[in-house]
């Protein structure tokens, strides 16, 4: 793992720095997806720091754990973390959504070091992660596949094809984090497609399931330990999060799924996140 830290306060600080970069990227590009980046970032910061076996100076290392950002629109979160962990430079973040830039609108394994999946179409990452997990087992490798899913995303039927297949194939090395922020593109999930008892659905498919508060770092570190230690079957950490977390006017606001802040809003965000201007 990157092992920048495993102390709770340092993890919180890492996530705060990432949040600042997320808002900066989306503001510079005047496009992109801040909401889902801000909801996922505490989880990803902890995953990279306490569990994921990867080497920033050797991003293509064969035996690395795979991290698949299936909700690939939330790329600013991933780019910020890749910069903080040394896979890419902070200068690279300026290439977000810029012609020729390694930080493409949606994370893309062909463009950016440290990215294991070419995302952008929802509902594809779990199947891909299952393939990575199967390949690891066939090769006798200890590596694992981690997949970050959005809650809107799990409305795609193919997610459930993969969920069923993963238990059939007893893939204990397949691990999912679900960013349960309750908002999708147009509106709240409850308006677009009610999903009722999500934990029960995964349990019924034979998965190990744990629910946490996705912004409480102690619970997150615990949750990731649960993923690390549950190897008898595929496992899912359902993280209750707030879309836009950390920027007051973005929090719980469907409008900031895919919209950039204007200059005035940007200044407010920077001040709320404690950025040194």
């Amino acid at each position, binding site marked *: 793992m990157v092992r920048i830290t495993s102390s709770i306060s340092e993890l919180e600080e890492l996530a705060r720095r990432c949040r600042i970069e997320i808002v900066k990227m989306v503001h510079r*590009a005047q*496009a*992109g997806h801040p909401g889902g980046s801000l909801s996922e970032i505490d989880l990803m910061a902890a995953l990279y720091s306490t569990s994921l076996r990867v080497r920033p100076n050797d991003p293509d290392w064969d035996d690395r754990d795979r991290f698949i950002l299936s909700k*690939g*629109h939330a790329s600013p979160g991933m780019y910020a973390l890749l910069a903080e962990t040394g896979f890419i430079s902070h200068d690279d973040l300026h290439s977000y*959504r*810029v*012609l*020729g*830039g390694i930080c*493409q*609108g*949606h994370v*893309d394994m062909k*463009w950016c070091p440290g990215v294991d999946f*070419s*995302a*952008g*179409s*929802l*509902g594809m990452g779990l199947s891909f992660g299952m393939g990575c997990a199967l390949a690891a087992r066939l090769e006798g490798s200890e590596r694992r596949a981690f997949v970050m899913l959005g809650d*809107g*995303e799990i*409305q*795609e*039927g193919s997610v459930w094809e993969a969920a069923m297949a993963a238990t059939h194939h007893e893939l204990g090395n397949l691990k999912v984090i679900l960013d349960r922020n309750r908002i*999708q*593109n*147009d509106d709240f999930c409850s*308006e*677009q*497609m009610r999903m009722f008892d999500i934990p029960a659905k995964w349990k019924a498919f034979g998965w190990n399931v744990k629910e946490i508060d996705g912004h409480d770092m102690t619970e997150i570190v615990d949750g990731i330990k649960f993923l690390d230690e549950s190897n008898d079957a595929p496992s899912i950490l359902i993280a209750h999060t707030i879309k836009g977390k950390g920027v007051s006017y973005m929090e719980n606001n469907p409008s900031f799924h895919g919209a950039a802040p204007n200059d005035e809003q940007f200044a407010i965000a920077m001040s709320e996140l404690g950025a040194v201007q």
Partner: protein
Amino acid sequence: MSRMAATRDGYGQALLELAGNDKVVVLEADLGKSTKSLHFRRAHPERTISCGIGEQNMLLVAAGMASSGYIPFASTFAIFTERAFEQMRNGVARPNLAVHVCGSHGGTHTGTDGSSAQSIEDLAIYRTLPNVTVLHPCDDVSTRLLTKQLAKTDSPSYMRTARNKTPVLYDNVDPSTIQIGKGIQLRDGADVAIIACGVLVSEALKAADELSKQGVQATVIDMHTIKPLDIELVDLVAERCGAIVTAEDHSVIGGLGGAVAEHLSASSCTPLERVGVHDRFGESGQADEMLELMELSVPHIVKAAQRAINRK
């Protein structure tokens, strides 16, 4: 300066105007704000069916409703309609059910979302399906009029709209000149015919201006209907100009260029040059940058015209 508008707005407007027919229903897959079906949803929530992020389900729900006498309009991004291609093939086209699919944000022009969002094969794949009409209008006026005509047809359709604004061409034209299956001649010239669709129609007009400065007179056609192709018009301009250029924000394989090439190969030996995306994926960039990078912009259309003329 002419008015600028996005074709997706013409689609949204047409749905509202169609709402008087209570058989018209709208299906969404969490992109109503983007496709512009949201206006219909706000006015008629009871006839708007949210399918969540589930395009495959949406297509077949639409088919079931069509089989029960409704007139479904189902929309999402062009690229994500493709996920339901087999549903469209077996569940919609084969039984010839009048489901109208609208794919917005088509082409590389859609911009900085990058290659995963840039459909450059939609026209090609839907064109292979029997019974399916394939449209790609160039402005909001024609999009609105064509969408309204679709509601009266009894077979399925696919229409691509674009995300970004382009010049409006038909504010002051007689609406009866805009008909499914009929190309529109926008400019007359005897040396070469540029047959374009969608966001490249206004680029083709600019290219014709450039060519005219060089003493080359170009006919420009808005071929908003890719299928059925207006072959009479293609034959007419092939005969009159003796050289043809097609222009589309789509792969050169199988779309408008493919359709014209297939037709010409059986009817005449008119030289044809295809402006389109050359067998590659896009990337993140602004709309104008993408047209440049993909070799779709005015200078590329001009050069293609010169090549076609040289081959006469």
